[in-house]
């Protein structure tokens, strides 16, 4: 059984694989078209100075999204290699 957490609670610098993804909603369709899909690896780079939005790295580029959207994306953290 895989452990999933919300993308918004991922630690800064950590990577994770997207697992569950809302089907409806403008934001999620756009994110999907920009390459954030179930199975995609994302890395949380940083949050903006006031804590929102988030900046993630996905498929080699940097993307911002708000916490309100990131809360609906469930990810499976990848254990950092020693």
């Amino acid at each position: 059984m895989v452990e999933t957490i919300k993308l918004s609670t991922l630690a800064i610098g950590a990577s994770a694989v997207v697992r569950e993804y809302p089907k409806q909603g403008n934001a999620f369709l756009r994110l999907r078209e920009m390459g954030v899909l179930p199975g995609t690896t994302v890395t949380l780079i940083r949050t903006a100075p006031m804590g929102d939005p988030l900046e993630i790295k996905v498929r080699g580029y940097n993307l911002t999204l708000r916490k309100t959207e990131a809360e609906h994306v469930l990810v499976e953290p990848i254990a950092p290699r020693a």
Partner: protein
Amino acid sequence: MSTAPTSPGPARAPVYALVGNPNCGKSTLFNALTGLKQKIGNYPGVTVEKKIGTAYSQHGHALTIIDLPGAYSLAARSPDEAVLRDVLLGRRTDTPMPDRIVCIADATNLERNLYLIHQILDLGRPVILVLNMMDVAAQTGLVVRAARLEKELGIPVIPCEAINGKGLVELKLAMSRHDLPLSRHSWEIPAPIAPAVSELAASLVDNDQRGPLIARAEALLLLTDQDTVRVAGSRPLSARTTEILRSWEKRWQGQGTDWAGALVNSRYDAITELCTHVIERSAVKTGASVSDRIDAVVTHPLWGWLVLGGVMAALFLSIFTLAQVPMDWIGDHTAALATWVKHTMPAGDLRDLVTDGAIGGVGSVITFLPQILILFFFIGLLESTGYMARAAFIMDRLMSRVGLNGKSFIPMLSSYACAIPGIMATRTIEDTKDRLVTILVAPLMSCSARLPVYLLLIAALFPSAAVPVGAKVAIMLTMYALGTAGAFFFAWLFKRTLLKGEPPLMIMELPPYRLPKMRDVALHMLERAWLFMKRAGTIILGISIILWFLTAYPKAPAGSTDSQQIAQSFAGMAGHALEPVIKPLGFDWQIGIGLISSFAAREVFVSSMGVIFNAESSEENTAPLRDALLAAKWPDGRALFTPLVCITLMVFYVFAMQCMSTIAVVKRETNSWRWPLFQTVYMTGTAWLVCLIIYQTGRALGF
């Protein structure tokens, strides 16, 4: 209307559309091909309207090239993406339907770039694929095998460095090929969805007059995006097609099929499969990239604000210090010119028209050219390094408090240069209400046309040379801050009342930092300088001359002084008519003339003051405008431009809507007169009210 691929007829040059994701270098390539000067910047959404140019093939044949706004998908989310969709699908009457498509992909970011290109291959038209930014790819240790991609897709794939002009010859050779192959790439539409695609495509052909290939592509889009308007554009779908779409959606909903997700996923599956053969990471990347390290500072909770503050301070300091020398030079020369004309031409109306009207008016405005160039230099740096997108990122939280998102901050930042490109830039905003709110508040950001007004009034405020630069910078910053705060306040108010809506998304790409291209920055400055001089030579010259006539006629009885002449002239009558309204703000009829003429363009205030007050100066010499202002008096002998009046007047210019061109652009972008009229009224009304409060409080406090 035929939508089948047309072969370029002999009479007309073949039409090529440049298509790709935002910020992948389309405009850079367009400029390299056509020699034109489309604006380039390192953030998504620089180009928001199509632009047509001509290139010449290696054999000298003309090729028509269309530069387009970038998009992430053909299912358009925002007005700029809709431009791309409509031009490609031949829905724009003012643009020829492209015969061939040049797709541009950022080689450093191939997977996401290929998504749009994958949709375009479905259109069944000849496509050439350009892999741009190969230099950056090589630096980051990516090997992109163009030959392999060419083999997989079956279309020409050309590696390029648009910025260095590399790959252009190969591209032009491919463009002039007569036998451009169609892509042989095929991908599997998920089985449960395939029958729906065929049924919808057939209905689009039968009932919506689409060509067969476009119909298939459009069917796929309709299934990707729930909002049919985004796919079909303003022409509504036929009832039959809508019915088919709805019945499939209902069936899938019942079965729990995520059809849109499945379509996007299978496209990305096909792309990932392609890329495994094409991309190779040669070097293992070690540690954070340069871009990430810069961002660690720029978006830092503390350093970030210091960087922003430092940039602003540097900007205003250089406006006040660096500009002084060239400004004095221009001022001396225009004054010398006026004096020379006074000595050489016979005295009379014509001479006065030349010296007071033309030279006095235009000269007073063009002395501010150096400051305006400095402003554009700084804005150019922000745009070409990639800081704009970071500003949006940092500001998003604040913007969300007023109900907008960080993306709205980019048009607002551009409006510091000029509200017109700022309002155009709102096309990247997805939500129509958010876009409208941004359009309504953008002109509150102090634009470059206000700069001469502020500078003149600050000079009048601090006539003594002993005043430290810091005080002037502080006043200037206050004016900019006031306008910005006003924009935030009204955005908040409008989002609360008139234009309530959902909290917007903030899904935006942050491009890597690039070294500023000095050439681009310089070109941009030159173009702006040229625009400014053109305005000085046309609008401002024209209005100065008209104003001169309006101040010179009707003639006062012989023996009256210059100021008596102006007072009873046509302009004087208008000023006097306005005086009751503006007297509570501390402005007299002469300032009133300036305010009225400023409705054409704000800088005209300076030239009008030049015409009105220099007319009173001595015959022999043209006094600097600042001194002329300081000498101006009310009829009872009180000074007109007291410090309080200077401040109040600046605040008036912060808030008032005084720009014909902005009004015209708002009318075009919102498609009605309602919004520009509303904007003019609310802004000017606010200006009056705020000035009333400031002036009356100031008076009560004894200033």
